[in-house]
């Protein structure tokens, strides 16, 4: 991944209802961050089907695995996540951006790919991991989910 001279931003997926436990958004602003541009270019049917999957996970479901799943058995990729519809894959990583609600899970989508094989291509997950660990990603997420001010934690 080249140096990052551009502005990296994070935004929640538009049109998806965030729940008290989960949310999904895109990291954008670098040519390698192709999840958001791909999502925008989806046909209506693909877009709707992805939305259904994203909303389902956001609402608290952990399956079906054919729709989305993490990689808990892959130690190096255990924070990675993928949404699937037909050949389309939206890869991202999970994090806990709310200090006041540690159980809240955010899925940060970074990478789109198309695949026709059963096995996940590790290069996608490695790419996701690079972004997960990058300071600009953390800063972009923190901009949308700022740390609560002292004294406001419990309203």
């Amino acid at each position, binding site marked *: 991944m080249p140096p990052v001279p551009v502005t990296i931003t994070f935004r929640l997926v*538009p*049109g*998806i*209802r965030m729940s008290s436990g989960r949310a999904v958004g895109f990291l954008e602003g670098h040519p390698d961050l192709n999840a958001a541009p791909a999502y925008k270019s989806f046909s209506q*049917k693909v*877009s*709707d*089907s992805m*939305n*259904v999957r994203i*909303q*389902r996970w956001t*609402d*608290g*479901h952990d*399956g*079906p*695995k*054919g*729709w989305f799943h993490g990689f808990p058995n892959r130690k190096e990729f255990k924070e990675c996540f993928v949404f699937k519809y*037909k050949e389309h894959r939206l890869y991202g990583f999970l994090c806990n951006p709310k200090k006041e609600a540690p159980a809240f899970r955010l899925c940060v989508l970074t990478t789109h790919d198309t695949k026709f094989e059963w096995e996940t291509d590790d290069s996608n997950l490695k790419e996701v991991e690079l972004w997960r660990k990058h300071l600009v990603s953390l800063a972009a997420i923190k901009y949308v989910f700022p740390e609560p001010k002292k004294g406001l934690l419990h309203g």
Partner: protein
Amino acid sequence: MGKSKHWTNRGDDAFAHAIASDFAAQIETILEEEGIERKVLAEKMRVTPGRVSQVLNNPASMNLRTVVKYSRAVNKKVAIVTYDDGDKNNENGPIDAGVFSGAWEQAGCPTSLFGLAGASLIGSYGFVVSQGSYTEHSLKGIPASEETQRLQDFPPQIEQTLEQPMIVFNPKSQEKVIYAQA
């Protein structure tokens, strides 16, 4: 930054796509959890595996009979629920079916409204309804059935402060309402 409307706000087709997909997800989850292959499901339904994939990938094409057929093929039943979540313009999208089935399971899987421990509504008379807080069994007062006999009109005109919760059965809406002190 304004709040964006839910993607199903686009129209009825989008809403139908969402709830049909919700149903397809339930079927796919059952298949995964019970280790049933799509071809086995297809055999049971006397259709081709390709047809099963086609329907589950494009669930908006299902009609009601197909929904029932798929449910029965995985030994489940299906209900159609209308509800009012206060979102009359559908700015927030449909409620996940799992919320309804989860609530039903939490209530002990009742087979009729009589099996519900608590019930809905109120907002008038200065009383509130405690959802699930009281059961007929735990009430020391008059059984709900006797109240039903006694009450000619619904809702009842409650003017005094209730000493204890009172269950009233609305024969018209088949709804059981608990009146309790606010």
